[in-house]
């Protein structure tokens, strides 16, 4: 009863926020853009047939036709709309949920109810995920239907992007909640959460710098330390790769075809090949270790925030 009440309250709070509707508008816009793309014979039509283009034989599209395009679209959606744009907006939209609950005059009534602080904290944390779940269902659901109905390509694995997006959000949201408990400031939550997200992504990509530049690999100890440290924070970047892998869009990753490397110098070719190798390695990421270690971090931060919450005076 209490959990449902907190979920419904979080939902009502979310619906009251303009950002919720901005995200819905983005979903509608992307859906319309995808709807405007069609395939006829060897041609791709854009803007509902206003522009038509022949598929170039050197274009990556030509390699495997529509499936290839779908892969690009899925990867693009995950990386851009569900990644940077989506998560940024969702962080901003949900940043106020905990500080609002902890406002003096609001928290007094809630804490006087027969609900323990840890349970209240956990329920509220989980209830906040509903906001993202709704957005993920709308975005992935609509784009899934467009790909199936308009393009005739049904990719059931794409639906896994829904839990993955919620997971990605939860990686960052644990930091939001900790900051909210420590500062009770929405602005601080937004700034620090976005900063943490950048740091998480950066730390995860750090070993790639070593892999790309052989001269750095001479510093073996540093290399190993960087690799080890990169496993501590949540692997936000891995989520995109996992989504690409699970939705069979792996072929659309930024892997440069061998034909494209024919005209480049040997040095550049070596760098491109290492880059390719990195991208391929990402597809081999173990979901268990990536998600498991990320969740460990998340659980630790959430427990820390919960501990602080249970010891606070309001």
């Amino acid at each position, binding site marked *: 009863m209490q959990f449902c009440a907190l979920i419904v309250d979080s939902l009502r709070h979310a619906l009251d926020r303009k950002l919720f509707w901005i995200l819905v508008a983005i979903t509608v816009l992307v859906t319309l853009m995808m709807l405007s793309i069609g395939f006829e014979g060897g041609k791709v039509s854009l803007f509902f047939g206003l522009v038509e283009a022949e598929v170039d034989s050197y274009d990556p599209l030509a390699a495997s036709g529509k499936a290839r395009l779908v892969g690009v679209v899925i990867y693009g959606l995950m990386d851009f709309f569900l990644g940077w744009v989506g998560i940024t907006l969702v962080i901003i939209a949900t940043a106020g949920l905990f500080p609002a609950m902890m406002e003096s005059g609001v928290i007094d009534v809630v*804490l006087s109810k027969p609900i323990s602080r840890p349970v209240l904290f956990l329920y509220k944390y989980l209830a906040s995920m509903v906001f993202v779940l709704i957005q993920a269902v709308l975005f992935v659901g609509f784009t899934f239907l467009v790909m199936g109905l308009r393009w005739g390509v049904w990719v059931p694995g794409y639906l896994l992007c829904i839990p993955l997006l919620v997971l990605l959000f939860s990686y960052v949201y644990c930091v939001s909640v900790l900051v909210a408990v420590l500062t009770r400031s929405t602005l601080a939550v937004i700034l620090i959460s976005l900063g943490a997200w950048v740091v998480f992504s950066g730390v995860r990509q750090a070993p790639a710098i070593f892999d790309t530049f052989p001269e750095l690999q001479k510093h073996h100890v540093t290399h190993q330390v960087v690799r080890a440290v990169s496993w501590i924070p949540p692997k936000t970047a891995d989520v995109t790769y996992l989504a690409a892998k699970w939705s069979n869009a792996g072929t659309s990753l930024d892997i440069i075809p061998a034909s494209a490397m024919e005209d480049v110098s040997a040095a550049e070719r070596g760098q491109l090949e290492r880059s390719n190798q990195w991208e391929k390695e990402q597809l081999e990421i173990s979901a268990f270790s990536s998600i498991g270690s990320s969740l460990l971090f998340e659980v630790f931060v959430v427990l820390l925030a919960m501990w602080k919450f249970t010891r606070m005076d309001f």
Partner: protein
Amino acid sequence: MVRVTELTNLAVDLVDVHKTYRKTVQALRGVNVQVRRGEIFGLLGPNGAGKSTLVKIMMTVVRPDKLVGTILGRPLGNRKKLALIGYLPENHRFPPYLTGEELLDYYGALAKVPKAMRRRRAAELLEWVAMSKWAKTCVGEYSKGMMQRLGLVQALLNDPQLLVLDEPTDGLDPAGRRAVRELLLRLRSEGKTIFLNSHLLSELEMVCDRVSILVNGLVARQGTLRELTEHTVEYRITTTGDLAAVKEAVERCGARIDNTVIILNGHNVAKVNELIDLLRGKGVLIESVVPHRFSLEEVFMETLGTAR
């Protein structure tokens, strides 16, 4: 131990409550408060006395540094007992995106009130506070008085055994205040216990069975209104004519003269009669003898002066 206390007549039994904020501000320095079941108990005190801290400790909003005691016979924070308490905090703020009806449903669910009951009670109580037509309006559009009435409704939604009200008449017009007073008296007649924290001494005086005066984090006075005001009674003997001839004798009796009025402090009937005999013996005509009991406000101010 717990079972024994549950059987006692005390709804609130707090002993030696201490609270210090940020290791420097001593809000409570060993407060003892006992509230009997079925009474209206008033908590008084100047700003910064620690009243709100005490109330917040009772409602688990603030954690005490030290405390021994029970509420409704169980240790503070007991979930089952919290479900039997209604609370209206001072300066409460409700989520502005909820309608009155939604808000009551939300808080009712958090209080574990069954759905059917909270719907029925919400409708009844909204009707009682004349808010039915605002039930589907967002709380953000409510006036302060309306918010206060809604706050009272949410506190009463779970049909509490103990009602803790922090400044319940704040923002209410005279008619609203009167309605709250009537409600408190009705609830007391139904056997509910009410813990009232208010600055409005005249209002407390009208409804409270017992009060506690908190000064500088300590209980300076506690008891029934009669007990608190008893020692502060004074008798005013109004006379006609000149009192110069009896001035010395009157002062020997411990009284003082103010024009034609003789004032005798304290509850001492024998002394009053002694004075009357004296005056009559000297031929002074007595117009009236009026015992004057101090108001709660006067007791409060006296206590404050003594404590400081």
